[in-house]
């Protein structure tokens, strides 16, 4: 359109050059109105149900809210208490421990699955669906079944381990060292389908010509993967990493139904600490402070990831 206008201007200089200012801003206003009217239904819901409570939470973190209306200002007392709270430290480190194990494992597994299933063989659709099933299964059902699988004396997993020669297999969910790895295994199994789909979508954008060129140049499969696939996947990889990180920091439902923070406190994570303080011990102001701490953890790490990505793609 611009080219045509410019040509027209060039050939017929006596025509009006651009629409007058009033009509231009009216157009922009109408476009904005249309845009807002599409976003508004969702945004109103988001605003009232998510944004407003989050803003209120920031205020409540500085009070001793008891959920029934009393919220006296206590300043930073909640945060000082958090700093000295042993359970909060345990929850914090457990959350980091879980994330550091879960994120790379899930990326490797889901990327591997995506690469395996990124072809047009017959039946590949079945395998893609099967890999996605764990993600849509009820979390309680998952917890019950994996609890049975992980049973140290009667569970199939330890039976197999004993059969291949490991005489004292780990106690899994009954042992404080192995409970978190067990949860990570189940969590990876559950998430791999979802991130596999994301990676599959990303793999479709890798230009075939690059692969062809690399093959012609004599690169083997691994070199092609590292030098063609991975760089092309960077936007997808960035998205997956950010989503995985945030979801790992916020992990709650799986821990609650599988171990409830136990045995002892070995799988207590931040979200669960917040839930316990708020709903089991009715200290909602303190729980809000912990939630603010979790928020800052997520946002600082995410900002770090964005800066890293910007540097890499510059």
């Amino acid at each position, binding site marked *: 359109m611009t080219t045509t206008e410019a040509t027209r201007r060039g050939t017929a200089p006596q025509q009006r050059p651009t629409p007058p200012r009033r009509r231009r801003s009216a157009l922009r206003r109408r476009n904005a109105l249309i845009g807002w009217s599409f976003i508004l239904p969702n945004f109103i819901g988001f605003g009232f149900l998510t944004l407003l409570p989050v803003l209120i939470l920031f205020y409540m973190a500085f009070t001793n809210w008891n959920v*029934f209306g009393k919220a006296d200002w206590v300043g930073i007392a909640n945060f000082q208490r958090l700093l000295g709270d042993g*359970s909060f430290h345990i929850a914090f480190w457990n959350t980091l421990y879980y994330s550091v194990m879960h994120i790379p494992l899930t990326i490797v597994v889901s990327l591997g699955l995506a690469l395996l299933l990124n072809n047009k063989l017959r039946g590949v659709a079945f395998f893609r669906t099967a890999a996605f099933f764990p993600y849509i299964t009820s979390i309680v059902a998952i917890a019950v079944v994996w*609890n049975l699988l992980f049973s140290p004396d009667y569970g199939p997993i330890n039976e197999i381990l004993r059969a291949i020669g490991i005489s004292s297999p780990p106690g899994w*969910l*009954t042992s404080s060292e192995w409970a978190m790895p067990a949860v990570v295994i189940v969590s990876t199994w559950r998430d791999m389908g979802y991130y596999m789909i994301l990676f599959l979508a990303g793999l479709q954008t890798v230009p075939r010509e690059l692969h062809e060129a690399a093959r012609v140049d004599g690169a083997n499969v691994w070199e092609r993967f590292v030098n063609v696939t991975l760089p092309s996947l960077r936007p997808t990889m960035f998205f997956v990493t950010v989503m995985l990180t945030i979801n790992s920091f916020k992990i709650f439902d799986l821990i609650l139904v599988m171990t409830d923070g136990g045995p002892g406190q070995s799988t207590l994570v931040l979200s669960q600490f917040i839930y316990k303080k708020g709903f089991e011990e009715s200290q909602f102001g303190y729980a809000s402070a912990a939630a603010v701490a979790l928020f800052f953890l997520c946002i600082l790490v995410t900002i770090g990831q964005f800066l890293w990505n910007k540097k890499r793609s510059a």
Partner: protein
Amino acid sequence: MNRKILAAGSIAAVAALTLAGCSGSTDAGESADPDAPITLTLSGWSLDTTPEFQTLADAFHEENPNVTIELKEYDAAEYNTLVTADLAAGSGPDIITQKEVKYVTTFQEGGQLLDVSDVKLPDGIGGAESYTVDGTAYAVPYRQDSWVLFYDKDLFDAAGVAYPDGSWTWDDYAAAAKALTTDTSKGAYLHRWQSTVQGFANAQTGTSVLDGDYSNLKQYYDNTLALQDAGYQVDFNTSTANQLTYQGEFGTQKAAMMLMGTWYTATLIAQQASGDANDFEWGIAPAPQLDAKTAGTDNTPVTFGDPTGFGINANIDSAKVDAAKKFLEFAASEEGAQALAAIGITPALTNDAVVDTYFSVDGAPSDDLSKFAWSTHEVLPENPTSSKTATIQGILGDLHTAVMSGSASIDDAIKTAEDRVKNEVG
């Protein structure tokens, strides 16, 4: 022109969606009319399997035809959270059932409970102290369960072991568990709750969880772990992995003995009638005691248990307060106790007449020891009424899972718990 239609259509859609999102019409407030019938809402849980609420509601309605009690059902496992949410939103029930003593201070400090000190309680009622804060009563007990020993007479006969006679100590209990363990059934089943060990440990040594000193737990955990290691009871990890139910374990005769609260008698009677549980002779005995001082039918055995009570919503309509207080008085009275005993619930008032009613229910044990175990005991509260209780019980719950799963020794776990209480509760 197309854009105009598009814009108009989308604005209309937004308007429609926004209006649809608004909630329905608000209820108009009803003006007070002294002769009008009064409806009180009462919070309950698992209404199909917990008939006590409907029983009390119906019995009260018979005596007071102008007052109807409507039951509001809440999920049993999340009862306190859901009631808290409703109260915070201003749509809580008129009569708030106090399911756990741990939460009484939450409601009371949150200003949600009305002062009910003027509700008359019968003499000899148990559990009223749990609802008293600073001399003011905020709820009224209608039920007082206690923990007793359930035993399977058929399995005892098969193994040739003498029935409990009311004088057992924990050593006697362990010896019986050993003798009763066969290939098909264990001597005992201990459920996964922390109360199964800690309740007895605290009540029988006279320790309060608020003190912060948990050395009394060591002996009780050593005893329990010994039974577990020897194979006389299902171990904690298997019970957790397979999510065993205590009703299933005792009811299908997989264990000859079980320590459980008196609420189980109603369930067992119902399940034996329906066929969910096996048909066998059973009885209840006093819980094993720490030593001979409190053991035997000449003494008063010590056990633990918490009451269940009714409180009144502080924001209740002022026209309904009298009716609500009348209901509380009724629930705690002998009439309420008789109504509850007739369906197998352990009321807070257990005089001789109530005992007779309870044990005349079809399917209830008929021996004297059962009657003694049910009516004669010193019941100490499992949860002291304090705002620190919930946090401390959480810490002790972590101790329980750590020790019972074998991932921490009892000494380490006790030290961790004591440090945590100092650090987190102060």
